[in-house]
């Protein structure tokens, strides 16, 4: 991990227990600070009421409220939180909708650990630069 990026807090939002565990391990192994895991948009919003988060990794397809809707909500209410969207789907329209909603990056599942780490490092480094 580059610099002092472990000072930044990461939240993982995915309805798959397996994916959340996998992403958390990938980030934890590299020293990133995963402060929370949520299985739905509602859980994530509740978590954000009491906890500071710098980066959210959000699955696109989730029951009830989608990841894109959650990202729109974050853009309006927590504009300081950076978002990486993840999904098994990677159609152009979904990627465009995700970026339009406020996501900074989009990764198609299953991704290599290096791809995730590069994306996370790039976004967290951009906070340091500001």
């Amino acid at each position, binding site marked *: 991990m580059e610099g002092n990026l472990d000072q930044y807090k990461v939240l993982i939002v995915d*309805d*798959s*227990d*397996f994916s959340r565990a996998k992403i958390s391990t990938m980030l934890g192994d590299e020293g990133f600070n995963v402060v929370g895991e949520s299985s739905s948009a509602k859980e994530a919003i509740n978590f954000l009421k009491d906890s500071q988060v710098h980066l959210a990794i959000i699955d696109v*397809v989730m029951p009830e409220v989608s990841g894109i809707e959650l990202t729109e909500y974050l853009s309006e209410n927590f504009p300081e939180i950076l978002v990486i969207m993840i999904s098994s*789907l*990677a*159609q*152009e329209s979904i990627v465009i909708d995700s970026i339009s909603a406020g996501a900074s990056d989009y990764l*198609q599942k299953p991704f290599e650990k290096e791809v995730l780490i590069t994306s996370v490092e790039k976004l967290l480094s951009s906070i340091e630069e500001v």
Partner: protein
Amino acid sequence: MKFNIENSRQVHLSVGLIDSLNRCLIEELNIYNHAFLQLDRPLIKSSFIHPKTRYEIPAIFKTQGDIKGSVVCLLDSYNKHINEKEKDFFNSLYTESMNILLGKIFTNLENNFNLSATISSPHAYNEKEMSSLLESHFKTELFSVGYKLISNGQEFDCRLIFNINKNKLFEA
């Protein structure tokens, strides 16, 4: 004998869609080094769909967009050893593996054939939904494809049953 143009059209649409889908199948897929999916039966074909057995673990995905319907995934756990402690983790691994596989297939479908469709989150087991789907075999065509899920030194047979058709709203 009366020629039923509606039925004829329906079959033509399905065959076209299934042919496209067939060309979008993923041969092999590594799921984060925890599992490996391998195409077992290369062709999606119309076949008799035998009812789900009590050893088969279902995951149902609905489709939206240019393609309407559902995909039922069934993993055969007969004679397999799944530790009680790891059961929830294994079920989540299997469901996410199917989600990833279908996501990649549907992404290929848009890239190669301009058919834009998405899949829902996996639905929890629902006996009524399953019965209704299997009964619909007699009304519409179902197509299935086989995959092997290899995880933790074991091979599991998976059936993916496609009960889908082009959404008429999106037809030219």
